[in-house]
Protein backbone atom coordinates (compact mmCIF):
# COMPACT_ATOMS: atom_id res chain seq x y z
CA UNK A 1 0.00 0.00 0.00
CA UNK A 2 2.61 2.49 1.11
CA UNK A 3 4.94 1.41 -1.64
CA UNK A 4 2.29 2.07 -4.23
CA UNK A 5 1.41 5.41 -2.77
CA UNK A 6 4.83 6.82 -3.28
CA UNK A 7 4.38 6.34 -7.00
CA UNK A 8 5.33 9.49 -8.92
CA UNK A 9 2.22 9.05 -11.05
CA UNK A 10 -0.08 9.73 -8.11
CA UNK A 11 2.17 12.51 -6.92
CA UNK A 12 2.06 14.05 -10.37
CA UNK A 13 -1.73 14.00 -10.42
CA UNK A 14 -1.74 15.35 -6.89
CA UNK A 15 0.61 18.17 -7.87
CA UNK A 16 -1.52 19.25 -10.81
CA UNK A 17 -4.49 19.14 -8.49
CA UNK A 18 -2.77 21.48 -6.07
CA UNK A 19 -1.84 23.95 -8.79
CA UNK A 20 -5.41 23.87 -10.04
CA UNK A 21 -6.64 24.53 -6.54
CA UNK A 22 -4.57 27.71 -6.47
CA UNK A 23 -6.07 28.70 -9.82
CA UNK A 24 -9.56 27.97 -8.56
CA UNK A 25 -8.94 30.17 -5.53
CA UNK A 26 -7.63 32.98 -7.74
CA UNK A 27 -10.99 32.93 -9.50
CA UNK A 28 -12.80 32.92 -6.19
CA UNK A 29 -10.97 35.96 -4.82
CA UNK A 30 -12.00 38.14 -7.73
CA UNK A 31 -15.51 36.71 -7.74
CA UNK A 32 -15.92 37.44 -4.05
CA UNK A 33 -16.28 41.10 -4.95
CA UNK A 34 -18.75 40.18 -7.70
CA UNK A 35 -16.27 40.61 -10.55
CA UNK A 36 -16.02 37.85 -13.14
CA UNK A 37 -12.54 37.90 -14.62
CA UNK A 38 -11.65 35.61 -17.49
CA UNK A 39 -8.10 36.91 -17.65
CA UNK A 40 -6.75 34.48 -15.09
CA UNK A 41 -5.28 32.22 -17.75
CA UNK A 42 -3.47 35.25 -19.13
CA UNK A 43 -2.12 36.25 -15.73
CA UNK A 44 -1.06 32.66 -15.24
CA UNK A 45 0.93 32.97 -18.45
CA UNK A 46 2.51 36.22 -17.29
CA UNK A 47 3.68 34.59 -14.08
CA UNK A 48 4.93 31.52 -15.91
CA UNK A 49 6.86 33.41 -18.58
CA UNK A 50 8.30 35.95 -16.16
CA UNK A 51 9.63 33.33 -13.81
CA UNK A 52 10.82 31.05 -16.61
CA UNK A 53 12.72 33.84 -18.38
CA UNK A 54 14.29 35.13 -15.20
CA UNK A 55 15.50 31.74 -14.11
CA UNK A 56 16.75 30.81 -17.59
CA UNK A 57 18.53 34.03 -18.50
CA UNK A 58 19.62 35.38 -15.15
CA UNK A 59 19.99 32.06 -13.33
CA UNK A 60 17.85 33.33 -10.47
CA UNK A 61 16.89 30.71 -7.92
CA UNK A 62 13.45 29.27 -8.61
CA UNK A 63 11.73 30.65 -5.49
CA UNK A 64 12.89 34.16 -6.38
CA UNK A 65 11.66 33.73 -9.95
CA UNK A 66 8.30 32.46 -8.77
CA UNK A 67 7.82 35.34 -6.37
CA UNK A 68 8.80 37.94 -8.96
CA UNK A 69 6.54 36.27 -11.51
CA UNK A 70 3.60 36.37 -9.11
CA UNK A 71 4.24 39.97 -8.13
CA UNK A 72 4.58 41.05 -11.74
CA UNK A 73 1.26 39.39 -12.57
CA UNK A 74 -0.25 41.13 -9.55
CA UNK A 75 1.07 44.53 -10.64
CA UNK A 76 -0.31 43.96 -14.10
CA UNK A 77 -3.56 43.07 -12.36
CA UNK A 78 -3.60 46.54 -10.80
CA UNK A 79 -2.86 48.15 -14.16
CA UNK A 80 -5.68 46.22 -15.79
CA UNK A 81 -7.98 46.36 -12.79
CA UNK A 82 -8.03 50.12 -12.37
CA UNK A 83 -9.41 51.15 -15.76
CA UNK A 84 -11.73 48.16 -16.07
CA UNK A 85 -13.32 48.90 -12.70
CA UNK A 86 -16.07 50.97 -14.15
CA UNK A 87 -17.12 48.03 -16.27
CA UNK A 88 -19.57 45.70 -14.70
CA UNK A 89 -20.81 42.18 -15.14
CA UNK A 90 -20.62 40.89 -18.67
CA UNK A 91 -18.54 43.81 -19.88
CA UNK A 92 -15.81 43.06 -17.41
CA UNK A 93 -15.96 39.41 -18.38
CA UNK A 94 -15.58 40.20 -22.07
CA UNK A 95 -12.79 42.71 -21.62
CA UNK A 96 -10.84 40.34 -19.41
CA UNK A 97 -11.42 37.56 -21.91
CA UNK A 98 -10.05 39.87 -24.60
CA UNK A 99 -7.13 40.83 -22.41
CA UNK A 100 -6.23 37.18 -21.96
CA UNK A 101 -6.28 36.68 -25.72
CA UNK A 102 -4.11 39.74 -26.28
CA UNK A 103 -1.55 38.37 -23.84
CA UNK A 104 -1.50 35.09 -25.69
CA UNK A 105 -1.05 36.82 -29.05
CA UNK A 106 1.85 38.79 -27.59
CA UNK A 107 3.46 35.59 -26.35
CA UNK A 108 3.10 34.15 -29.85
CA UNK A 109 4.51 37.18 -31.62
CA UNK A 110 7.24 38.41 -29.33
CA UNK A 111 9.57 35.74 -30.61
CA UNK A 112 12.86 37.26 -29.54
CA UNK A 113 11.74 36.94 -25.94
CA UNK A 114 9.28 34.08 -25.81
CA UNK A 115 10.40 31.97 -28.77
CA UNK A 116 6.82 32.27 -30.02
CA UNK A 117 4.64 29.22 -30.26
CA UNK A 118 7.64 26.90 -30.08
CA UNK A 119 7.60 27.68 -26.40
CA UNK A 120 10.26 27.92 -23.74
CA UNK A 121 12.01 24.69 -22.93
CA UNK A 122 14.78 24.02 -20.47
CA UNK A 123 13.08 25.88 -17.65
CA UNK A 124 14.74 24.88 -14.38
CA UNK A 125 12.70 22.11 -12.87
CA UNK A 126 11.63 22.56 -9.27
CA UNK A 127 12.23 18.98 -8.21
CA UNK A 128 15.42 18.41 -10.17
CA UNK A 129 16.96 21.62 -8.87
CA UNK A 130 16.05 20.63 -5.36
CA UNK A 131 17.61 17.22 -5.87
CA UNK A 132 20.78 18.87 -7.10
CA UNK A 133 20.87 21.15 -4.07
CA UNK A 134 20.34 18.43 -1.50
CA UNK A 135 22.90 16.24 -3.22
CA UNK A 136 25.42 19.04 -2.93
CA UNK A 137 24.64 19.10 0.75
CA UNK A 138 25.52 15.45 0.92
CA UNK A 139 22.02 14.06 1.04
CA UNK A 140 20.97 11.16 -1.14
CA UNK A 141 17.34 10.18 -1.68
CA UNK A 142 18.52 6.63 -1.15
CA UNK A 143 18.97 7.48 2.52
CA UNK A 144 15.20 7.60 2.68
CA UNK A 145 15.00 4.55 0.53
CA UNK A 146 13.70 6.57 -2.39
CA UNK A 147 14.56 6.61 -6.08
CA UNK A 148 15.60 9.94 -7.53
CA UNK A 149 12.33 10.52 -9.34
CA UNK A 150 10.34 9.41 -6.32
CA UNK A 151 12.18 11.97 -4.28
CA UNK A 152 11.62 14.67 -6.91
CA UNK A 153 7.90 14.23 -7.14
CA UNK A 154 7.54 13.75 -3.45
CA UNK A 155 9.35 17.04 -2.93
CA UNK A 156 7.24 18.88 -5.50
CA UNK A 157 4.05 17.51 -4.04
CA UNK A 158 4.98 18.42 -0.50
CA UNK A 159 6.15 21.90 -1.44
CA UNK A 160 2.91 22.51 -3.31
CA UNK A 161 0.88 21.06 -0.47
CA UNK A 162 2.46 23.46 1.99
CA UNK A 163 1.90 26.33 -0.41
CA UNK A 164 -1.75 25.43 -0.94
CA UNK A 165 -2.37 25.08 2.77
CA UNK A 166 -0.80 28.48 3.27
CA UNK A 167 -2.86 30.04 0.48
CA UNK A 168 -6.10 28.64 1.85
CA UNK A 169 -5.18 29.73 5.36
CA UNK A 170 -4.25 33.19 4.13
CA UNK A 171 -7.43 33.84 2.22
CA UNK A 172 -9.64 32.21 4.78
CA UNK A 173 -8.26 34.55 7.44
CA UNK A 174 -8.61 37.49 5.11
CA UNK A 175 -12.17 36.48 4.43
CA UNK A 176 -13.05 36.35 8.13
CA UNK A 177 -12.01 39.91 8.66
CA UNK A 178 -12.79 43.51 7.88
CA UNK A 179 -11.44 42.96 4.35
CA UNK A 180 -13.61 39.92 3.74
CA UNK A 181 -16.70 41.77 4.96
CA UNK A 182 -15.91 44.62 2.61
CA UNK A 183 -15.54 42.16 -0.29
CA UNK A 184 -18.85 40.50 0.28
CA UNK A 185 -20.62 43.81 0.94
CA UNK A 186 -19.43 44.98 -2.49
CA UNK A 187 -20.57 41.73 -4.05
CA UNK A 188 -24.02 41.96 -2.51
CA UNK A 189 -24.73 45.67 -3.06
CA UNK A 190 -22.05 47.90 -4.42
CA UNK A 191 -23.85 51.18 -3.82
CA UNK A 192 -24.89 50.34 -0.29
CA UNK A 193 -21.33 49.24 0.44
CA UNK A 194 -20.02 52.54 -0.82
CA UNK A 195 -22.51 54.43 1.31
CA UNK A 196 -21.35 52.50 4.35
CA UNK A 197 -17.88 53.94 3.93
CA UNK A 198 -16.21 51.21 1.89
CA UNK A 199 -13.76 52.42 -0.72
CA UNK A 200 -15.01 50.19 -3.50
CA UNK A 201 -12.30 51.21 -5.95
CA UNK A 202 -9.62 50.10 -3.55
CA UNK A 203 -11.23 46.81 -2.65
CA UNK A 204 -12.20 45.86 -6.18
CA UNK A 205 -8.71 46.52 -7.45
CA UNK A 206 -7.32 44.70 -4.43
CA UNK A 207 -9.40 41.63 -5.23
CA UNK A 208 -8.59 41.81 -8.90
CA UNK A 209 -4.88 42.13 -8.22
CA UNK A 210 -4.92 39.36 -5.64
CA UNK A 211 -6.58 37.10 -8.20
CA UNK A 212 -3.97 38.06 -10.78
CA UNK A 213 -1.15 37.54 -8.32
CA UNK A 214 -2.40 34.13 -7.37
CA UNK A 215 -2.87 33.11 -11.02
CA UNK A 216 0.63 34.30 -11.81
CA UNK A 217 1.92 32.38 -8.83
CA UNK A 218 0.22 29.20 -10.00
CA UNK A 219 1.55 29.81 -13.51
CA UNK A 220 5.12 30.19 -12.28
CA UNK A 221 4.84 26.97 -10.28
CA UNK A 222 3.37 25.28 -13.35
CA UNK A 223 6.35 26.39 -15.44
CA UNK A 224 8.87 25.01 -13.00
CA UNK A 225 6.96 21.80 -12.65
CA UNK A 226 6.73 21.04 -16.36
CA UNK A 227 10.00 22.61 -17.45
CA UNK A 228 8.35 23.71 -20.67
CA UNK A 229 5.64 26.26 -21.50
CA UNK A 230 4.10 27.56 -24.68
CA UNK A 231 1.45 30.19 -25.40
CA UNK A 232 -1.15 27.51 -26.06
CA UNK A 233 -1.03 26.57 -22.37
CA UNK A 234 -2.65 29.88 -21.46
CA UNK A 235 -5.36 30.16 -24.10
CA UNK A 236 -9.13 30.48 -23.90
CA UNK A 237 -9.61 26.87 -22.89
CA UNK A 238 -7.45 27.35 -19.83
CA UNK A 239 -9.62 30.29 -18.83
CA UNK A 240 -12.64 28.04 -19.15
CA UNK A 241 -10.95 25.32 -17.10
CA UNK A 242 -10.39 27.81 -14.31
CA UNK A 243 -13.90 29.20 -14.58
CA UNK A 244 -15.47 25.79 -14.23
CA UNK A 245 -13.57 25.08 -11.00
CA UNK A 246 -15.50 27.94 -9.45
CA UNK A 247 -18.76 27.18 -11.22
CA UNK A 248 -18.90 23.55 -10.17
CA UNK A 249 -17.34 23.88 -6.75
CA UNK A 250 -18.97 27.17 -5.91
CA UNK A 251 -17.74 30.65 -5.20
CA UNK A 252 -19.40 31.38 -1.88
CA UNK A 253 -16.72 29.79 0.27
CA UNK A 254 -13.07 29.13 -0.44
CA UNK A 255 -13.64 25.38 -0.23
CA UNK A 256 -15.89 25.57 -3.29
CA UNK A 257 -13.31 26.27 -6.02
CA UNK A 258 -10.77 24.16 -4.15
CA UNK A 259 -13.14 21.25 -4.28
CA UNK A 260 -13.99 22.00 -7.92
CA UNK A 261 -10.32 21.92 -8.88
CA UNK A 262 -9.73 18.77 -6.89
CA UNK A 263 -12.68 16.93 -8.35
CA UNK A 264 -12.23 18.00 -11.95
CA UNK A 265 -8.52 17.14 -11.97
CA UNK A 266 -9.22 13.73 -10.53
CA UNK A 267 -12.17 12.91 -12.74
CA UNK A 268 -10.34 12.29 -16.05
CA UNK A 269 -7.67 10.28 -14.23
CA UNK A 270 -10.12 8.01 -12.49
CA UNK A 271 -12.40 7.67 -15.47
CA UNK A 272 -10.01 7.63 -18.41
CA UNK A 273 -12.77 7.15 -20.98
CA UNK A 274 -14.22 10.44 -19.86
CA UNK A 275 -11.14 12.24 -21.08
CA UNK A 276 -12.39 12.16 -24.64
CA UNK A 277 -15.71 13.71 -23.68
CA UNK A 278 -14.22 15.96 -21.07
CA UNK A 279 -15.14 19.30 -22.56
CA UNK A 280 -18.57 18.10 -23.60
CA UNK A 281 -19.16 17.10 -20.01
CA UNK A 282 -17.77 20.43 -18.83
CA UNK A 283 -20.25 22.22 -21.04
CA UNK A 284 -23.16 20.26 -19.66
CA UNK A 285 -21.94 20.74 -16.10
CA UNK A 286 -21.80 24.50 -16.55
CA UNK A 287 -25.33 24.76 -17.89
CA UNK A 288 -26.79 22.36 -15.36
CA UNK A 289 -25.06 24.08 -12.47
CA UNK A 290 -26.32 27.48 -13.55
CA UNK A 291 -29.85 26.14 -13.77
CA UNK A 292 -29.95 23.92 -10.72
CA UNK A 293 -27.39 25.26 -8.30
CA UNK A 294 -25.86 28.57 -9.37
CA UNK A 295 -23.98 28.92 -6.11
CA UNK A 296 -21.99 25.73 -6.83
CA UNK A 297 -21.88 22.39 -5.04
CA UNK A 298 -20.21 23.69 -1.90
CA UNK A 299 -22.00 26.66 -0.39
CA UNK A 300 -22.18 28.05 3.11
CA UNK A 301 -24.86 25.57 4.15
CA UNK A 302 -22.82 22.59 3.02
CA UNK A 303 -19.82 23.83 4.97
CA UNK A 304 -21.97 24.29 8.08
CA UNK A 305 -23.48 20.86 7.59
CA UNK A 306 -20.07 19.20 7.25
CA UNK A 307 -18.83 21.02 10.32
CA UNK A 308 -21.82 19.87 12.32
CA UNK A 309 -21.50 16.34 11.05
CA UNK A 310 -17.79 16.04 11.74
CA UNK A 311 -17.94 17.55 15.20
CA UNK A 312 -20.82 15.28 16.13
CA UNK A 313 -19.02 12.23 14.84
CA UNK A 314 -15.89 13.37 16.61
CA UNK A 315 -17.82 13.50 19.86
CA UNK A 316 -19.32 10.09 19.33
CA UNK A 317 -16.13 8.28 18.46
CA UNK A 318 -13.93 10.08 20.85
CA UNK A 319 -11.33 10.88 18.20
CA UNK A 320 -11.73 11.99 14.65
CA UNK A 321 -9.76 9.20 13.10
Amino acid sequence: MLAELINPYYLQVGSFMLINIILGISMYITLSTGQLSLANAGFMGIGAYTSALLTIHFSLPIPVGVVIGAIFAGLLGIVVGLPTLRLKGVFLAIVTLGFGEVIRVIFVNWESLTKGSVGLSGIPHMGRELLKTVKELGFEPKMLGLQNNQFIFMAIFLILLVIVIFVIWFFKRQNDSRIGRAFSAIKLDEQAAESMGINITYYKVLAFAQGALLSGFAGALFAHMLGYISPADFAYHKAIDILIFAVLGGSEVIWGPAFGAFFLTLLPEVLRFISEYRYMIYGVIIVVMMVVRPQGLIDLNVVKWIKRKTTRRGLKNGTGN
Partner: protein
Amino acid sequence: MLIEQLINGITLGSIYAIVALGFTLVFGVLGIVNMGHGEIFMFGAFIGVLVTTTFGLPLWLAFLAAIIVTAFMGYLLERFALRPLRNHQGSNHLAPLISTIGVSIFLENLSHHLFGPGNHPFRTPFAEMSIEIGSVTVYLVQIVIFVISLILMAALSFWLGKTKAGKALRAVAENLETASLLGVDTKKYITLTVILASAMGGIAGILVGMAFNAVTPQMGLSMGLKGLAIIILGGMGNVKGAMVGGLILGLAETFIVVYGDSGYRDAIAFIAIIVILLVRPQGLFGQKTSDVRR
Protein backbone atom coordinates in the same frame (compact mmCIF):
# COMPACT_ATOMS: atom_id res chain seq x y z
CA MET B 1 -3.99 45.25 -55.08
CA LEU B 2 -5.66 47.89 -52.97
CA ILE B 3 -9.05 47.28 -54.54
CA GLU B 4 -8.71 43.56 -54.12
CA GLN B 5 -7.80 44.00 -50.48
CA LEU B 6 -10.74 46.34 -50.05
CA ILE B 7 -13.02 43.63 -51.41
CA ASN B 8 -11.40 41.08 -49.09
CA GLY B 9 -11.94 43.37 -46.15
CA ILE B 10 -15.54 44.13 -46.97
CA THR B 11 -16.33 40.44 -47.47
CA LEU B 12 -14.81 39.53 -44.15
CA GLY B 13 -16.44 42.52 -42.51
CA SER B 14 -19.87 41.62 -43.86
CA ILE B 15 -19.56 38.14 -42.43
CA TYR B 16 -18.52 39.55 -39.08
CA ALA B 17 -21.47 41.90 -39.26
CA ILE B 18 -23.98 39.11 -39.85
CA VAL B 19 -22.59 37.16 -36.92
CA ALA B 20 -22.65 40.29 -34.79
CA LEU B 21 -26.28 41.00 -35.73
CA GLY B 22 -27.23 37.77 -34.00
CA PHE B 23 -25.41 38.81 -30.86
CA THR B 24 -26.85 42.27 -30.96
CA LEU B 25 -30.43 41.09 -31.35
CA VAL B 26 -30.22 38.87 -28.30
CA PHE B 27 -28.44 41.50 -26.27
CA GLY B 28 -30.80 44.24 -27.36
CA VAL B 29 -33.86 42.35 -26.26
CA LEU B 30 -32.66 40.18 -23.39
CA GLY B 31 -29.63 42.04 -22.15
CA ILE B 32 -27.73 38.76 -22.43
CA VAL B 33 -24.50 38.00 -24.21
CA ASN B 34 -25.10 34.68 -25.90
CA MET B 35 -21.69 33.03 -25.96
CA GLY B 36 -23.16 30.04 -27.77
CA HIS B 37 -23.91 32.05 -30.88
CA GLY B 38 -20.57 31.33 -32.55
CA GLU B 39 -21.12 27.60 -32.26
CA ILE B 40 -24.63 27.81 -33.67
CA PHE B 41 -23.10 29.65 -36.60
CA MET B 42 -20.59 26.82 -36.98
CA PHE B 43 -23.38 24.25 -36.99
CA GLY B 44 -25.07 26.21 -39.75
CA ALA B 45 -21.91 25.87 -41.81
CA PHE B 46 -21.74 22.13 -41.18
CA ILE B 47 -25.36 21.67 -42.19
CA GLY B 48 -24.44 23.44 -45.41
CA VAL B 49 -21.55 21.03 -45.99
CA LEU B 50 -23.75 18.03 -45.27
CA VAL B 51 -26.52 19.09 -47.61
CA THR B 52 -24.43 20.26 -50.56
CA THR B 53 -21.26 18.20 -50.42
CA THR B 54 -22.26 15.00 -48.67
CA PHE B 55 -25.77 14.63 -50.12
CA GLY B 56 -25.19 16.67 -53.24
CA LEU B 57 -28.43 18.61 -52.89
CA PRO B 58 -28.95 22.14 -54.21
CA LEU B 59 -27.80 25.21 -52.37
CA TRP B 60 -31.21 26.67 -51.53
CA LEU B 61 -32.01 23.49 -49.67
CA ALA B 62 -28.82 23.95 -47.69
CA PHE B 63 -29.95 27.41 -46.64
CA LEU B 64 -33.36 26.09 -45.69
CA ALA B 65 -31.93 23.18 -43.70
CA ALA B 66 -29.40 25.38 -41.94
CA ILE B 67 -32.06 27.90 -40.98
CA ILE B 68 -34.34 25.19 -39.63
CA VAL B 69 -31.63 23.39 -37.69
CA THR B 70 -30.05 26.50 -36.20
CA ALA B 71 -33.44 27.97 -35.34
CA PHE B 72 -34.26 24.78 -33.51
CA MET B 73 -30.92 24.92 -31.72
CA GLY B 74 -31.75 28.46 -30.73
CA TYR B 75 -35.02 27.23 -29.30
CA LEU B 76 -33.25 24.53 -27.31
CA LEU B 77 -30.68 26.99 -26.07
CA GLU B 78 -33.35 29.36 -24.85
CA ARG B 79 -35.45 26.59 -23.39
CA PHE B 80 -32.73 24.80 -21.46
CA ALA B 81 -29.93 27.27 -20.83
CA LEU B 82 -31.69 30.61 -20.49
CA ARG B 83 -35.32 30.23 -19.48
CA PRO B 84 -34.67 28.25 -16.30
CA LEU B 85 -32.32 31.03 -15.16
CA ARG B 86 -35.02 33.67 -15.56
CA ASN B 87 -37.32 31.75 -13.29
CA HIS B 88 -34.60 31.54 -10.70
CA GLN B 89 -35.11 33.96 -7.88
CA GLY B 90 -32.26 36.28 -7.23
CA SER B 91 -30.05 34.65 -9.83
CA ASN B 92 -27.24 36.97 -10.68
CA HIS B 93 -26.62 38.72 -13.95
CA LEU B 94 -23.58 36.61 -14.72
CA ALA B 95 -25.53 33.36 -14.78
CA PRO B 96 -26.73 33.58 -18.42
CA LEU B 97 -23.22 34.45 -19.60
CA ILE B 98 -21.69 31.48 -17.84
CA SER B 99 -24.50 29.20 -18.90
CA THR B 100 -24.07 30.10 -22.58
CA ILE B 101 -20.32 29.59 -22.25
CA GLY B 102 -21.29 26.07 -21.22
CA VAL B 103 -23.45 25.73 -24.32
CA SER B 104 -20.61 26.92 -26.50
CA ILE B 105 -18.09 24.44 -25.09
CA PHE B 106 -20.60 21.64 -25.39
CA LEU B 107 -21.46 22.40 -29.01
CA GLU B 108 -17.85 22.85 -30.08
CA ASN B 109 -16.89 19.46 -28.73
CA LEU B 110 -20.07 17.83 -29.93
CA SER B 111 -19.16 18.87 -33.45
CA HIS B 112 -15.72 17.34 -32.98
CA HIS B 113 -17.43 14.06 -32.37
CA LEU B 114 -20.09 14.43 -35.02
CA PHE B 115 -18.03 15.82 -37.88
CA GLY B 116 -14.43 15.12 -36.91
CA PRO B 117 -11.78 17.70 -36.22
CA GLY B 118 -10.71 18.25 -39.80
CA ASN B 119 -11.56 20.83 -42.38
CA HIS B 120 -14.55 20.17 -44.56
CA PRO B 121 -14.65 21.52 -48.07
CA PHE B 122 -17.79 23.25 -49.20
CA ARG B 123 -18.42 22.37 -52.82
CA THR B 124 -21.05 24.21 -54.73
CA PRO B 125 -20.87 25.48 -58.27
CA PHE B 126 -22.08 28.83 -56.99
CA ALA B 127 -18.89 29.32 -54.99
CA GLU B 128 -16.87 29.12 -58.23
CA MET B 129 -18.72 31.85 -60.13
CA SER B 130 -16.84 35.05 -60.59
CA ILE B 131 -16.75 38.18 -62.67
CA GLU B 132 -13.73 40.02 -63.95
CA ILE B 133 -13.64 43.76 -63.52
CA GLY B 134 -10.45 44.94 -65.13
CA SER B 135 -7.70 42.96 -63.47
CA VAL B 136 -9.77 42.28 -60.39
CA THR B 137 -11.67 39.05 -59.89
CA VAL B 138 -14.78 39.34 -57.81
CA TYR B 139 -16.56 36.21 -56.74
CA LEU B 140 -20.32 36.23 -56.81
CA VAL B 141 -20.30 34.90 -53.26
CA GLN B 142 -18.51 38.00 -52.08
CA ILE B 143 -21.19 40.23 -53.56
CA VAL B 144 -23.96 38.05 -52.19
CA ILE B 145 -22.48 38.17 -48.70
CA PHE B 146 -22.29 41.92 -48.73
CA VAL B 147 -25.84 42.25 -50.05
CA ILE B 148 -27.26 39.73 -47.59
CA SER B 149 -25.63 41.51 -44.70
CA LEU B 150 -27.18 44.79 -45.81
CA ILE B 151 -30.57 43.18 -46.31
CA LEU B 152 -30.46 41.55 -42.90
CA MET B 153 -29.49 44.80 -41.27
CA ALA B 154 -32.24 46.73 -43.02
CA ALA B 155 -34.82 44.04 -42.36
CA LEU B 156 -33.90 43.87 -38.73
CA SER B 157 -34.03 47.63 -38.29
CA PHE B 158 -37.39 47.77 -40.00
CA TRP B 159 -38.77 44.83 -38.14
CA LEU B 160 -37.68 46.14 -34.76
CA GLY B 161 -38.73 49.71 -35.46
CA LYS B 162 -41.89 49.47 -37.49
CA THR B 163 -43.72 46.22 -36.97
CA LYS B 164 -45.97 45.23 -34.13
CA ALA B 165 -43.84 42.25 -33.20
CA GLY B 166 -40.79 44.46 -33.21
CA LYS B 167 -42.43 46.97 -30.93
CA ALA B 168 -43.39 44.20 -28.58
CA LEU B 169 -39.78 43.04 -28.62
CA ARG B 170 -38.59 46.48 -27.77
CA ALA B 171 -41.06 46.65 -24.94
CA VAL B 172 -39.54 43.42 -23.66
CA ALA B 173 -36.14 44.98 -24.01
CA GLU B 174 -37.17 48.05 -22.05
CA ASN B 175 -38.54 46.19 -19.13
CA LEU B 176 -39.64 42.61 -18.77
CA GLU B 177 -42.22 43.25 -16.07
CA THR B 178 -43.81 46.25 -17.68
CA ALA B 179 -44.02 44.44 -20.98
CA SER B 180 -45.83 41.52 -19.47
CA LEU B 181 -48.17 43.91 -17.64
CA LEU B 182 -48.94 45.52 -20.98
CA GLY B 183 -50.08 42.14 -22.21
CA VAL B 184 -47.01 41.26 -24.27
CA ASP B 185 -46.36 37.54 -24.19
CA THR B 186 -42.76 37.97 -23.07
CA LYS B 187 -41.92 34.29 -23.10
CA LYS B 188 -42.94 34.01 -26.72
CA TYR B 189 -40.99 37.06 -27.79
CA ILE B 190 -37.86 36.09 -25.93
CA THR B 191 -37.89 32.66 -27.53
CA LEU B 192 -38.58 34.24 -30.90
CA THR B 193 -35.60 36.53 -30.50
CA VAL B 194 -33.16 33.74 -29.76
CA ILE B 195 -34.56 31.65 -32.62
CA LEU B 196 -34.26 34.53 -35.04
CA ALA B 197 -30.72 35.36 -33.98
CA SER B 198 -29.69 31.72 -34.28
CA ALA B 199 -31.18 31.38 -37.75
CA MET B 200 -29.17 34.41 -38.80
CA GLY B 201 -26.11 32.65 -37.41
CA GLY B 202 -26.98 29.66 -39.56
CA ILE B 203 -27.15 31.80 -42.70
CA ALA B 204 -23.80 33.36 -41.85
CA GLY B 205 -22.34 29.88 -41.42
CA ILE B 206 -23.23 28.82 -44.96
CA LEU B 207 -21.95 32.08 -46.40
CA VAL B 208 -18.58 31.63 -44.70
CA GLY B 209 -18.41 28.04 -45.86
CA MET B 210 -18.95 29.15 -49.45
CA ALA B 211 -16.65 32.13 -49.31
CA PHE B 212 -13.64 30.42 -47.78
CA ASN B 213 -14.30 26.76 -48.56
CA ALA B 214 -13.42 25.92 -45.00
CA VAL B 215 -15.62 24.55 -42.26
CA THR B 216 -14.13 23.38 -38.98
CA PRO B 217 -15.43 22.94 -35.43
CA GLN B 218 -13.04 25.64 -34.26
CA MET B 219 -14.49 28.35 -36.48
CA GLY B 220 -17.33 29.00 -34.05
CA LEU B 221 -15.08 30.11 -31.26
CA SER B 222 -12.96 32.46 -33.29
CA MET B 223 -15.97 33.92 -35.10
CA GLY B 224 -17.91 34.16 -31.87
CA LEU B 225 -15.21 36.11 -30.11
CA LYS B 226 -14.96 38.50 -33.05
CA GLY B 227 -18.72 38.96 -33.09
CA LEU B 228 -18.61 39.75 -29.41
CA ALA B 229 -15.92 42.34 -29.98
CA ILE B 230 -17.98 43.93 -32.72
CA ILE B 231 -21.11 44.45 -30.69
CA ILE B 232 -19.07 46.20 -28.07
CA LEU B 233 -17.38 48.24 -30.77
CA GLY B 234 -20.65 49.21 -32.39
CA GLY B 235 -22.63 49.61 -29.21
CA MET B 236 -24.49 46.83 -27.47
CA GLY B 237 -27.87 46.13 -28.95
CA ASN B 238 -27.39 48.56 -31.81
CA VAL B 239 -28.17 47.11 -35.25
CA LYS B 240 -26.41 49.75 -37.30
CA GLY B 241 -23.47 49.65 -34.92
CA ALA B 242 -23.07 45.92 -35.47
CA MET B 243 -22.95 46.43 -39.23
CA VAL B 244 -20.45 49.27 -39.13
CA GLY B 245 -18.42 47.61 -36.39
CA GLY B 246 -18.22 44.44 -38.47
CA LEU B 247 -17.00 46.29 -41.54
CA ILE B 248 -14.45 48.25 -39.52
CA LEU B 249 -13.04 45.08 -38.01
CA GLY B 250 -12.98 43.25 -41.35
CA LEU B 251 -11.12 46.10 -43.00
CA ALA B 252 -8.79 46.58 -40.07
CA GLU B 253 -7.84 42.91 -40.06
CA THR B 254 -7.23 42.96 -43.78
CA PHE B 255 -5.15 46.10 -43.73
CA ILE B 256 -2.98 45.07 -40.85
CA VAL B 257 -1.91 42.25 -43.12
CA VAL B 258 -1.21 44.68 -45.94
CA TYR B 259 0.67 47.33 -43.99
CA GLY B 260 1.51 45.75 -40.69
CA ASP B 261 2.24 42.44 -39.07
CA SER B 262 -0.21 39.66 -39.82
CA GLY B 263 0.74 38.03 -36.52
CA TYR B 264 -1.30 40.56 -34.59
CA ARG B 265 -4.40 40.13 -36.73
CA ASP B 266 -6.33 38.22 -34.09
CA ALA B 267 -5.51 40.71 -31.40
CA ILE B 268 -6.99 43.73 -33.17
CA ALA B 269 -10.54 42.87 -32.20
CA PHE B 270 -9.66 42.70 -28.54
CA ILE B 271 -7.38 45.67 -28.45
CA ALA B 272 -10.22 47.58 -30.09
CA ILE B 273 -12.76 46.56 -27.47
CA ILE B 274 -10.43 47.26 -24.61
CA VAL B 275 -9.80 50.73 -25.97
CA ILE B 276 -13.43 51.42 -26.79
CA LEU B 277 -14.69 50.25 -23.42
CA LEU B 278 -12.28 52.51 -21.67
CA VAL B 279 -12.80 55.53 -23.88
CA ARG B 280 -16.39 55.27 -24.98
CA PRO B 281 -18.11 52.47 -23.07
CA GLN B 282 -21.41 52.86 -24.88
CA GLY B 283 -19.74 51.93 -28.17
CA LEU B 284 -19.40 53.91 -31.36
CA PHE B 285 -23.12 54.14 -31.94
CA GLY B 286 -24.54 53.44 -28.53
CA GLN B 287 -26.54 56.00 -26.67
CA LYS B 288 -25.11 57.29 -23.49
CA THR B 289 -27.32 56.03 -20.72
CA SER B 290 -26.44 55.02 -17.24
CA ASP B 291 -27.77 51.61 -18.12
CA VAL B 292 -25.07 50.85 -20.63
CA ARG B 293 -22.58 49.69 -18.13
CA ARG B 294 -25.02 47.35 -16.50
